[in-house]
């Protein structure tokens, strides 16, 4: 680490001083040579707002998003922007997207949106785009080039020819373990766009990519997977510093492939098991990952949360706010050349609840 960063102990102290509640969250000043180079953003993902009927929505999922929004608004100093990582809705309907957008409208500051499969497969993103704009795009912020991809597309035959109704298409893709689903992909058209977009960017410019699905292959059965991951990685390979953030998996994952550091987001709605917990699965969870605590269902918000990210010297440090568990920070370690958990990375530092089976 080339920075002095003492957020963890600060949180611990502040949490102790206000008792059990984890509020308010405050960020510590980072000690740096050039503080102007550094900035933070918040990252909320996978809220799965689910309509019961009419104006009734599943309370549990609503509460997750409401809490993330409230806590994000308390960050000091304010994050430069907020990323919403996709799956705002559960079944992609207008009422769900509208209700989700209303809850997100309480956020202070600019919000960038990433498309999730639960937002997409009812009307192929039409209403989502009306609310939030383009499905893939890029922007520059303080010397970092940000790219947002719609990585949850799939084969045309599956999308356009297989299902008698849009509702059924959405329901088939909504089931994580549904064998009728189809692998996610970025697709030719968007990869062509990405190639052109990156052609304008200098190789030493830090790149941060947001996608909903992992731009790597972990477990195909639950679509912890992007079919053309290698092709997307190849487009990112010429750059010195690349960071990919993804949602979808509802758990902590991080990895390093070549020059690309990967970090996932927690969901605000509910946690997912690690694929290794499915006894019949073949899966490739990155060895680097120290897993989140096993969820305790008796705590409604356990194993859910949201993230805020420091970008320093073009590298990212992600702090996971885990509600009922201790906050965790996964930061790029320039000596090791990959992201590392700041507390639990060494085998002998791990705790029993991080063991999944």
């Amino acid at each position: 680490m080339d920075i002095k960063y003492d957020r963890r102990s600060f949180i611990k102290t502040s949490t102790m001083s206000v008792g059990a509640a984890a509020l308010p969250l405050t960020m510590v000043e980072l000690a740096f040579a050039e503080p102007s180079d550094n900035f933070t953003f918040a990252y909320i993902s996978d809220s799965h707002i689910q309509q019961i009927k009419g104006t009734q929505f599943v309370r549990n999922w609503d509460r997750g998003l409401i809490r993330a929004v409230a806590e994000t608004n308390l960050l000091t100093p304010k994050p430069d922007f907020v990323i919403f990582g996709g799956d705002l809705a559960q079944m992609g309907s207008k009422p769900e997207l509208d209700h989700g957008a209303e809850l997100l409208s309480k956020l202070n500051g600019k919000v960038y949106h990433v498309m999730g499969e639960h937002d997409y497969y009812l009307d192929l993103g039409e209403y989502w785009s009306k609310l939030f704009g383009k499905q893939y795009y890029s922007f520059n912020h303080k010397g970092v080039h940000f790219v947002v991809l719609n990585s949850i597309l799939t084969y045309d035959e599956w999308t356009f020819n297989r299902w008698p109704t849009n509702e059924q298409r959405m329901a088939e893709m909504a089931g994580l373990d549904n064998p009728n689903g189809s692998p996610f992909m970025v697709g030719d058209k968007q990869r062509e766009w990405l190639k052109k977009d990156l052609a304008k960017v200098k190789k030493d410019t830090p790149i941060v990519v947001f996608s909903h699905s992992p731009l790597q292959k972990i477990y195909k059965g639950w679509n912890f997977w992007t079919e053309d991951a290698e092709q997307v990685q190849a487009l990112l390979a010429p750059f010195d510093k690349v960071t990919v953030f993804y949602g979808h998996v509802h758990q902590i994952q991080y990895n390093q492939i070549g020059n690309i550091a990967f970090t996932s987001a927690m969901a605000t709605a509910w946690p997912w098991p690690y694929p290794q917990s499915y006894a019949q699965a073949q899966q490739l969870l990155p060895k680097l990952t120290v897993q989140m605590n096993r969820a305790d269902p008796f705590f409604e918000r356990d194993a859910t949360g949201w993230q805020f990210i420091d970008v320093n010297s073009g590298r990212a440090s992600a702090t996971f706010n885990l509600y009922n568990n201790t906050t965790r920070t996964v930061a790029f370690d320039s000596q090791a050349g990959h992201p590392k958990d700041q507390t639990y990375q060494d085998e002998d530092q791990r705790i029993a609840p991080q063991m999944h089976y």
Partner: protein
Amino acid sequence: MKIASVIACAALALGASAGASADEFTEEDLARWQEQFDGVVKEGRALWTDAKLGKNGVVCAQCHPNAANTHPETYPKFQKQLGKVANFWEMVNWCIRNPLEGDELAADDPKMTALLTYATWERRGVKLEPGKH
């Protein structure tokens, strides 16, 4: 059936009591029992993804894809939040009441049997470890 009849005849000839013996079964019996079991697994999978099992449209598979992280092989076990050693079906009912906001099932309700059968089938091959956390 042929083999069973031959054995039954032999048993009669030896002066044993008439009728099929309890520990005899055929390939057909095995196939039928497997079919019955598979049918209940299928019913269980249907319930696992059934928005009508609870009352808010949430399904078991939303948090437990392929019934993962249910750990049927660890029950009965002590649940600190219940303050006692609990059975797997008690935790299934806990989920029906809470995340699914529904009405719990009787322990011997055929729906409960199907849910437990499906979750246990997905965990096949894993050794029994009652009490494990």
